């Protein structure tokens, strides 16, 4: 066997790939579901926190900042493991899927809150003043004038951060979730051949490349009309 043959046999073994493709596809479906749940919950919670923060209620803002800093500082894997292995001691048992979902949701919430907040504060004061001078209330100004502008500014960093954190779904494999990486790892263990990992990598590309492209499309779609 030449070196090249050894390489293709290890990473592109058609027989092994065919055998584990169904498992990888199942894992793909699970990763998509997990990712969607994280994105929806994380972004909604992040936006809500940023909106609450806009009201400027001091003690509440301190609490928000503390929470956000906490989940931005902790490595996602640590949170997942803590929830999965730690919570049962407190009498609360979460499945691997639920631990991964909750952990990454909290992390995305924390990062997206910071991004949304930065977007809100980047809208010039004059926009608030103009809107308020026409009789719009605080909430109306926030909803109709400030937020649409803030969201546009946040789209590039938000897309990046969302992709980065959603890729963290691979960490779910650590707590026995058969996602793409989990399924691929299992395949490697059973076949003694790393080809399932190649399939897994391809599956991640198939999943995230469109998201990256979509992010770019959204950016141009929402640029200011000139």
């Amino acid at each position, binding site marked *: 066997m030449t070196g090249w043959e050894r390489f293709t046999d290890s990473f592109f073994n058609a027989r092994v790939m065919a055998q584990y493709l169904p498992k990888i596809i199942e894992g793909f479906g699970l990763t998509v579901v997990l990712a969607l749940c994280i994105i929806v919950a994380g972004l909604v919670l992040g936006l809500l926190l940023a909106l609450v923060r806009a009201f400027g209620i001091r003690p509440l803002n301190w609490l928000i900042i503390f929470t956000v800093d906490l989940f931005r500082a902790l490595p996602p894997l640590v949170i997942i493991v803590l929830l999965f292995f730690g919570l049962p001691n407190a009498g609360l048992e979460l499945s691997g899927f639920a631990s991964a979902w909750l952990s990454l949701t909290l992390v995305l919430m924390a990062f997206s809150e910071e991004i949304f907040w930065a977007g809100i504060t980047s809208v010039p004061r004059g926009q608030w*003043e103009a809107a*308020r001078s*026409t*009789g*719009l209330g605080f909430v109306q100004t926030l909803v*109709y004038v400030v937020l*649409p502008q803030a969201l546009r500014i946040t789209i590039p960093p938000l897309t990046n951060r969302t992709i980065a954190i959603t890729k963290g779904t691979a960490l779910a494999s650590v707590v026995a979730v058969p996602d793409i990486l989990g399924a691929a790892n299992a395949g490697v263990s059973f076949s003694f051949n790393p080809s399932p990992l190649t399939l897994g990598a391809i599956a991640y590309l198939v999943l995230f490349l469109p998201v990256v492209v979509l992010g770019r499309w959204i950016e141009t779609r929402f640029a*200011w009309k*000139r």
Partner: protein
Amino acid sequence: MSAATAREPIVEARAIHKHFGHLHVLKGVDLKVAEKELVFLIGPSGSGKSTLLRCLNRLEDPSSGQVIVDGIDMLDAKTDINKARQRIGMVFQSFNLYPHMTALGNVMLALRKVQGLGRAEAEAKARAALARVHLADRADHYPLQLSGGQQQRVAIARAIALEPRVMLFDEPTSALDPELVGGVLAVMRELREDGMTMVVVSHEMGFAKAAADRVVFMADGLIVEEGLPAEIFSQPKHDRTRAFISQIERH
């Protein structure tokens, strides 16, 4: 004396003080503006003229004093400030149009959300306001597609669409290229001819001489002197005023 004493004032500010931290920006200012009067506020930068203007619609809260606009006590906690502000239009130095809305959208927003008009009625009013500032054909343009002068006229349309009793102008032409100033001043002059009460912070002395009923000169948070444009510009009584006028006219 000016027209202010002859008619009932529509804007009345009494003993306005404003502190920003340890900065004492307004030191007891009284200002009365009669209906249909055009009052010009002039003075060196930092004199408090913009702050005074912003106290009139409570974009700034005065530290003490009283502001009555069209019979409404602006500083009373029971006053619905959002309702009261519809009677006081404001135009800003930097236009502050909403960049994510067309000119029409900018004018319609408060008509829809504050006055609660239906889409058709709001749009009709907004188009009429844009026509008054000669921008009926720019209704569907976004702010970045308009020149500075056009943007400022849209901002004026946004304010007058609400049918305010008073219009406040905070240096409306100072962010504009010189060739664009004329269009904005022309619209302001037409407003004045239609009987709009106006308080204008500006250094457009030519416009003040031609259109103002009264010029108020402020320095260091106080009104130094006020009078007819001819009096203030030709025979100022105070040295501060004289120094300021000669400095402005040199430009």
